[in-house]
């Protein structure tokens, strides 16, 4: 029995074969550093562009949290029983979606309205206060779906209350954000496909340089999988390098745009600052690099090895 094929030896041998393939692939890259760096740079640029757009979009969405105008939900209580009002108040105290709320009774409302008028005596002809009691709710979120859910919950408790929400601008901002995401995903997919094709070409040309080694290995009984393995590790190395490079580009690009954006926001009297992407998005960027690198190597090696003698 060949030692390489003994069951107990199979796993360590497999590990060793993979480690060798990875090591050889890394060595080959270090021997031709310029070409490898070009592949890494191309992938890095391709990844950094949509990532930067995403950072801008993500920050733009958080703009709604920075604008000094929270969405409001007003509950008009003229047709609501006192018991139901008490229910409402208990509910508002416990629901986490509620930031704060204020009870404004009809007299206070009228008094405030009167203060706003140039000539308060204009209201003196009224025999009674036409305004209802109002509960003014400030939600803890600007997310439209959560706002809808909260409004429905309040309307459910007090079916007679007039529930009016002032969150149209949140919806507009959100739909713009959705549009931006859609455009970004189209751009991202197209750029990703481009990256895969470029890396596939690089892999295929690298395999052409190894033609003699491949021919000899084939004659010695190498499988397709064995011949492909170093290329796939090469793809992962390029992918990781591209991801790291894209991360550097993204962080420096974001940092460099912070000051000009803050100036622009100040000019529009917006309290807004561009924040650096967190660990989660950066991990996704690295992962995207690895996936694209692997796909490119898989495509290129599959093609080149099929054509090889």
């Amino acid at each position, binding site marked *: 029995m060949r030692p*390489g094929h003994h069951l107990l030896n199979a796993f360590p041998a497999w590990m*060793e*074969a993979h480690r060798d393939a990875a090591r050889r692939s890394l060595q080959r890259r270090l021997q031709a550093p310029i070409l490898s760096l070009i592949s890494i740079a191309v992938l890095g640029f391709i990844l950094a562009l949509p990532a930067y757009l995403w950072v801008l979009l993500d920050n733009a969405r958080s703009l709604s949290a920075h604008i000094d105008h929270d969405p409001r939900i007003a509950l008009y209580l003229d047709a609501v029983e006192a018991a139901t009002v008490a229910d409402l108040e208990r509910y508002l105290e416990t629901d986490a979606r509620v930031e704060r709320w204020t009870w404004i009774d009809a007299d206070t409302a009228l008094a405030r309205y009167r203060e706003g008028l140039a000539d308060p005596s204009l209201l003196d002809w009224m025999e009674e206060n036409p305004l209802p009691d109002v509960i003014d709710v400030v939600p803890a979120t600007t997310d439209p779906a959560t706002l809808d859910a909260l409004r429905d919950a309040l309307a459910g408790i007090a079916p007679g209350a007039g529930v009016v929400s002032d969150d149209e601008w949140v919806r507009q901002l959100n739909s713009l954000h959705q549009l931006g995401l859609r455009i970004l995903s189209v751009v991202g997919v197209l750029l990703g496909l481009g990256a895969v094709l470029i890396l596939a070409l690089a892999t295929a040309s690298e395999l052409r340089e190894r033609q*003699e*080694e491949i021919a000899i*290995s084939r004659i*010695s*009984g190498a499988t397709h999988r064995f011949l492909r393995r170093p290329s796939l590790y090469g793809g992962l190395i390029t992918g990781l390098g591209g991801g790291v490079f894209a991360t550097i580009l993204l962080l420096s690009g974001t940092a460099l745009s912070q000051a000009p954006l803050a100036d622009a926001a100040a000019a529009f009297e917006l309290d807004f600052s561009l924040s650096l992407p967190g660990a989660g998005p950066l991990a996704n960027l690295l992962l995207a690099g690895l996936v694209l690198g692997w796909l490119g190597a898989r495509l290129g090696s599959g093609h080149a090895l099929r054509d090889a003698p």
Partner: protein
Amino acid sequence: MIHLQRVTKRFGSAAEALSNVSLRVDSGAMAFITGPSGAGKSTLLRLIAGLERPTRGRIRVNGYDLERLSPRAIPSFRRSIGLVFQDHRLLFDRPVFDNVALPLEILAYRRPEMRKRVRAALDKVGLLHKEAANPRTLSAGEQQRVGIARAIVHRPVLLLADEPTGNLDPALSREILRLFDDFNGVGMTALIASHDIGLVERMGKPILHLENGRVEARARPEPRT
């Protein structure tokens, strides 16, 4: 071990490289193919190694029917064969050791066992002291011996050699054929192509003589005493 029945090989519309060749080499035997260059010796070896497909006829090698060999079965078939080329076909981007280790790497041998076997093979061809050298720095004879070490390192059941003494002087040629004789002595079936009829005849092994793709003569000289 090797059984060819009326095998014909034609490349495109050219004349037949091999016409109606039948051949049988028993397991554990050693035989030679002779003939001038262009007689079809290399084609015959390439057919036996499964590197070419016959236009007509049937080839059975080591229990494999090559006509019915599926692409998935080709690697395992080739692992049972060792091939020696006239032009060595060594890889100059790595040292001698790595060249010889290639078949073992393909078979996923582990490092310590691989090292043992590569060094045993290099020792057998007298090049243990050159394991770290780049094959480019070796003489033609040494390169040929590295190629032989690579062909036998995984202990194939069948050794095929195409003009293994092609570029060598007579003394080196005899030494290389003696090596093949040694491998055959430990049970490896060997089929060797050579245009050097005088050298081959002195080995006292069965000989198939090819001319223009046809079998011209079969000889079974008496073994040397």
